[in-house]
């Protein structure tokens, strides 16, 4: 075993790549939850995004078109969820689970002929000058477009939630839908939009997984990433910047365990593979124990159905 084989700068760069699907999917879910809806179908929307993105990417030869298709597929699937919980008033927890089961099935069906094919390449964009700074340049400024977009969306979503009127309305709907309704806001419409946005983000996250991160299609390839994204939202206390930090810590653990496997550390592979999931549980415990308390920041109406009376 030789730990000096691990190049720190490359490690950080690959950590960012590994975390990007989580950042995207979790940001989407953050908006959904801020509107008062708990969508447990992130895993299902991600895998649909992964398979659609991959298929379209392979057929068109462009990873970007694939990524757009992934967003559309995720959004489309989330509409199904939105219809069931907003119009049909179904239980959100159960409907989210149904979405995951359904999505995993559909994805396996669609992806079957595409197993073992290589995806089109996505080019990295080195930002002029600053990408040439030793170490830091390799870490942060030689990535593909989606990584930069994910970072920009953290900023945009923070700005939207905290500085814009529309963000305030979204939050008020999530905090107390009855009050928001009596003030004249369209609770159902706003939630529809939030859920669709969440679906698109989860879809892109999935597309990034199959087109860049892995990059190929294997059945069930999300392997719990959607659930980890859900955990990240709780961990972040519904705050975009803490969500980003959480995702990078998590990506760091994943990358570190993969690197340790690669250099042949004398720890069983199964034990190393457990690490990300155990880390998620640990993170949830720590955040609940801390003096911030886990639930601070949780929208007041999270998971509750909205029924218009009168």
């Amino acid at each position, binding site marked *: 075993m030789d730990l000096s084989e691990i190049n720190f700068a490359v490690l950080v760069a690959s950590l960012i790549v590994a975390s990007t699907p989580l950042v995207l999917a979790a940001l989407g879910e953050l908006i959904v939850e801020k509107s008062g809806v708990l969508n447990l179908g992130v895993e299902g929307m991600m895998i649909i995004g992964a398979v659609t993105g991959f298929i379209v990417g392979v057929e068109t030869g462009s990873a970007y078109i694939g990524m757009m298709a992934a967003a559309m597929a995720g959004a489309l699937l989330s509409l199904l969820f939105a219809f069931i919980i907003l119009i049909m008033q179904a239980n959100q927890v159960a409907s989210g689970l149904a979405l995951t089961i359904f999505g995993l099935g*559909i994805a*396996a069906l669609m992806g079957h002929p595409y197993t073992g094919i290589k995806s089109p390449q996505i080019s990295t964009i080195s930002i002029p000058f600053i990408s040439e700074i030793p170490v830091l340049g390799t870490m942060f400024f030689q990535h593909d477009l989606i990584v930069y977009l994910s970072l920009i969306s953290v900023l945009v979503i923070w700005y939207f939630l905290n500085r814009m009127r529309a963000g305030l309305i979204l939050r008020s709907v999530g905090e107390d839908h009855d009050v928001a309704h009596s003030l004249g806001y369209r609770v159902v419409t706003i939630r529809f939009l939030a859920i669709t946005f969440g679906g698109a983000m989860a879809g892109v996250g999935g597309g990034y997984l199959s087109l860049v991160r892995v990059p190929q299609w294997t059945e069930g390839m999300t*392997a719990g990433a959607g659930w980890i994204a859900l955990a990240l939202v709780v961990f972040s206390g519904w705050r975009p910047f803490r969500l980003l930090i959480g995702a990078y810590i998590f990506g760091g653990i994943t990358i570190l365990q993969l690197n340790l496997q690669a250099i042949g550390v004398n720890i069983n592979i199964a034990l190393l593979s457990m690490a990300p999931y155990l880390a998620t549980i640990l993170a949830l415990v720590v955040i609940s124990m801390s003096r911030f308390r886990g639930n601070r920041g949780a929208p007041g109406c999270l998971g509750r159905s909205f*029924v218009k009376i009168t």
Partner: protein
Amino acid sequence: MFKLIPRENVSPVLSLLGPLFSVGLTMIVGGILFYFLGVDPFAAIKMIFWDPLMSETFSTYSIPQIFIKGAPLILIALGLSVGFKANVWNIGAEGQYIMGAIFGASFALSLYPLESIVIFPAMILIGVIGGCLWSMIPAFLKVKFQVNEILVSLMLVYVAEQILALASLGFLRNPDGAGFPGSRNLNQYTSASNAEIIAGTGIHLGVLLSFLMVIFFYVLLFRHSLGFKIKLLGNSPKASGFSGDNPNKLIFLCLTLSGSLAGLAGIMEVAGPAGQINIDFNVGYGFTAIIVAFLGRLNPIGIFFAGIVMALTYVGGELTQFMLNLPAAAIQVFQGMLLFFLLSFDLFVHYKIKLKGNK
């Protein structure tokens, strides 16, 4: 536009109609899906729902198979339904099922080749304890630190899968297995084998236990005050607190029940139909059981029938895979769709719908 008026009492007729209607609708939409997959929809639907029961060629094999596949579904779903009623969402039954199998099998295999009649009951007990211990982790974290049990129980499925890999490749690997993954076959170890109780059918003790558990849960939920307390916790946690019930105790109870039953299903499966611990031991019963619990309307009798219907789609699904080349994942889509329709239909169970007149 339409207007929703909450029903004072849930209509029992509609409540029963929901699952039937959903199965019917799933057949229609599923048929359309099969058509696009290039499979004759009528042949496929007939093969999934009719042939396993009625066809002379298949039914002698497939009718017992329905009960064998239904048993773990019913056992797990019964346990889950209690938690779902109380708003305790254990969705990691798949992990508890794996851990039950590993615990029980480890105990039995550690005694191999010792023969004794106490091994079998002790193995089952240890399997139940294994599943229960695994569900105690989310229970403890929820009660002590208010950590969301949905996420913890699910994360533990992935951990359990890794432990399963560890067991099949490492500590439980058959020393006489020429290096292949997987443990010794428990069916070849008389004291630990969950042998068939009706010769030639493969029906084992787990099937019988699944029937008995349906009755036990019916009594527990409808003839015992505990059933009422559980419902109260789910519908109104505040009222539950005022009436002096300790919600933490009920959370532990819900997760004990669901974890133990998933563990029981696991040890029954590994000592019976599966035979050995191997990497591909778990096939998703823990997740399908969630659908079974809802399809059965969280009612023990309902869960029994729902388990049978879902097992039918498994057995019929295998038939269509074999005969019509329908991809295995199609059945998963089918099951997901069923849950969607079912949840949507609840609208009509809980609300009256009136057309809004002009002002």
